[in-house]
Each structure stands twice: as C-alpha cells, then as structure tokens.
C-alpha cells in the first residue's frame, strides 16, 4: 500500500514537471526563408516584416528579415534565423536606401524605394502562411 502511494506520488510529480516544462516553451518557432524581387532584380537591403493576422499579443516583437544580394531573406524574431511561429501573416516590405553616391555629396536622408502601399499590412496584398516545419514562402515580386 505504501509502495503504491509512493509510485502514485512519483507519477504525479513527473506529470507536474512535464506540465511545467511545457509551459516554458511558449510558441514554437520554425525557420522561414523567402525571396523578394522588384521587377526581376533582388531588393537587396530591403526589410521584410511578418505581421500575424490574429495577433495574440499586440506589441510583441514581429518576425523580420533583411533581403540579401541574391534576393533571399531569413526571418528572425529573437535570435538570428530562429524564424516565426506557425500561422497566417500579412507581409510588408520597405526598402530604405541612402541617396548618397559619394563622400562629397551633400547630406540626403534615405528614402523608401518602394510604393507606400507595401509598407501597410492592410494594403500590401502580400500574405504568407508559416507551417509547422521549415517553410519556404513563395517569392514576392513587387512593382516599383
């Protein structure tokens, strides 16, 4: 009888420990990659931001990525390349580049090289779905 009680309490303890550990996980992240082209050229240095459609915690850090020389980006939320939680997203793209061509040019502030609609999640028309496993989002081809 005593033995059974001991086994029962051990089982309860194990179950509680598993439950506690599961609580620490939070949303799971899966690696996400994709490509952004403007016309047929890669939008190098553009900032891609994934806005969750049903935001559980407004103000939470959004998954984002910077487009590389080949047009690809990898999403980061907390540490480099960790990706995004699975779900549906609206996507915005802004492409801030400097106007300075040489050191002797007068100061000029950087400009967004893409139309303003791509910066607004409601108007950009870009959407993506992140699955449970590593996801490659279909290529976004934008018009300048």
């Amino acid at each position, binding site marked *: 009888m005593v033995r059974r009680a001991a086994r029962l309490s051990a089982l309860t303890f194990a179950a509680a420990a598993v439950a506690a550990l599961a609580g620490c996980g939070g949303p799971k992240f899966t690696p996400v990659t994709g490509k952004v082209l403007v016309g047929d050229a890669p939008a*190098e*240095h553009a*900032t891609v*931001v994934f*806005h969750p459609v049903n935001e559980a915690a407004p103000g939470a*850090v*959004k998954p*984002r*990525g*910077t487009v590389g020389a080949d047009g690809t980006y990898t999403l*980061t939320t*907390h*540490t*480099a*390349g960790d990706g995004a939680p699975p779900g549906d997203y609206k996507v*915005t793209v*802004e492409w*801030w*580049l*400097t*106007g*300075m*061509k*040489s*050191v*002797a*040019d*007068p*100061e*000029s*502030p*950087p400009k*967004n090289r893409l139309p303003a609609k791509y*910066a607004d999640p409601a108007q950009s028309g870009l959407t993506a779905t992140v699955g449970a496993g590593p996801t490659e989002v279909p290529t976004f081809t934008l018009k300048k």
Partner: protein
Amino acid sequence: MSRFRRSAFTLIELLVVIAIIAVLVGLLLPAVQKVREAAARMSCQNNLHQLGLGLHNYHDPNGGLASNIRPPTPPGIRVRWLTFILPYLEQEPLYRGINQNLNWSDPLNVPATGTRLKVVECPSAPNGQILDGAPPPETWAPIVANGDYVSIYGIDPRTIAAGLVRWAGQDGVSAPGAPGGNPLESGAVSKTAKLRFADFYDGLSNTLHVTESAGRPNIYRQGRLAVTATTGNRINGGGWCRPASDMRLVGSSADGTTFPGPCAINCTNGQDIGSAYPHPVYGVDGSSQVYSFHTGGANALFVDGSVKFLRQTIDIQTFAALITRAGGELPGDY
C-alpha cells in the same frame, strides 16, 4: 624536557595554514575585481560629466550646441562636434592642431586626430588604441585615435518599419521640432540644424546627449570580440574626430547579428558595413550601436548635464523616447 620540544611545523600544520590563506585570497580576489570595475565605471561617468560641461560651456558663446553640420566648402570635409568643444575641455593646442578646411584624415591633421584623448576613453573598454581610419575612396588604415562615446542622430527607418519603435509620423502626427518629422534627425546631435536648448521640447533632462559605444571599429557581440577591423569588415566609426562615430538607433537581435532588432544596449557595438562605400543603407553615417563593457548597461549623459546608468534591459521604444528631443512622448520608467 628537550625530548618533547618540537623543532618545526608538521606537514599537516603547514597544509592547513596554506589552505586557510588560499580560502582568504579566494574570498578577496573577486571583491578586488568588483571594486576595480566600479572605479572604472565611475571614471567613465566622470568623462561624460566633463563632456557635458564642455557642451554647455560651448552653447552660450556660440548660440547653439556643437553639431555635425558639414562646412559648405570645400566639399567632403567632415568635422565632429567633439572637435568644436575641445577648447572647452582644456584641449586648446589639440583644437588649433586641426585645420577645419581639411578633412580629419588629411596627413596635416593626423598628428592631432591621431592623438589619444583621455576624456573620450572609457577605462572599462579595451581602449587607448589608434584603430580607426578613413573610408573609401581613401585607403582604410588605422590612423586616428579611438573614442568610446557616441551621440545619437535619431531612429533608423528600418526599426520603425519593423514595428520596434512607433513613430508619431506614422499616425499622421508629425513630431514637433524635428525637421519634416524625420526620425533620423530627431536626436540631440544634428547634421542639418544648429540646435539650441530651446529646441528640446521634451525637456533637457529627458533627452539623451552622449552615451557609450566602445571597442569600435572592431565588432563585439555579447562581450566577445567577433570581428577584428579590416578594410572589408568593420564598423564605420570609432575615431573621436569622425562624425561617423555618431550613430542612429537600429537595435539588433539578442545575439547582435541581425538588424533591426529589439535589443538597444549591449548586444553589439555595431553593424559590419563591408567594403561598399558610401554604404547602400547607412550612406556615410556611422553603423555603431550602444555598447559598453560594464555589467548590466551603459552610462549616458543627458542634455541637462546629468549622467545616469541605463539598464540593458531597457525597452527599445523607451530608449527611442529618450533619444528624441521633441517627440512629445513620456519616456516611462527606465
């Protein structure tokens, strides 16, 4: 009697004495290290107080704060605010050694700009080196002396694009006082306007003036040296004489490798600009971020002359509120 007289310690006694001494030294050493770091941090704060006095003393006779506005002629000349306040830091000879009609990298200016300046070296940092050089079209070589302090122009548009910092202009409200509501020109040091104390609508005590970005142009991430500066990989910034040693707030991921991100302090001292110059994103601006070698945060001078220790856990939105001089926001608790 003489049969029982002991002539020496036994081995056990000796070992016990050595063990006790070892325990005492073990208790003492970490305390000594902590005191050394505390002293270095205070010395680092004192440097910021000196810079604050210099900036304030410059303000009244010159009708505004020292700025990074480029001289109109000849083109391509860059002079940093620190150069203008040198006479107010009792560095008159150094000030006279810099010809403001030539760039800081000119061989005639390098004897002055390559001089180490104690008031811009934070003792906690691996400082006291001549590590920074001129960007292309000149050949990059370490010619000028480092400074560990940084002033902030404003907020990078990428950080606002990622929703990390909400900008008043996004809701159709332009930030008062910031020219055109430009987030990049919202801070206490300007490349376009000669700012006076009256322009700080948020209040002098709520606006950040100078803080730390140590270890540049080498790249540090989370306390470790990640990249040693070369022509092809380095932070644009470091030399105390360079306007590019001032920065815009971008923020990074927690590991300090991707930009923009939610970490504002102590994740990395800047972004690698590679070899293309002017950089496609930064242009000729510096790519530094706020970084110190103190545990838990960085020292910061506010425009009113006060110096505070900012915790590295600070929310990036709160940090942005401290940077803007006329954002109209409440910085909240920090």
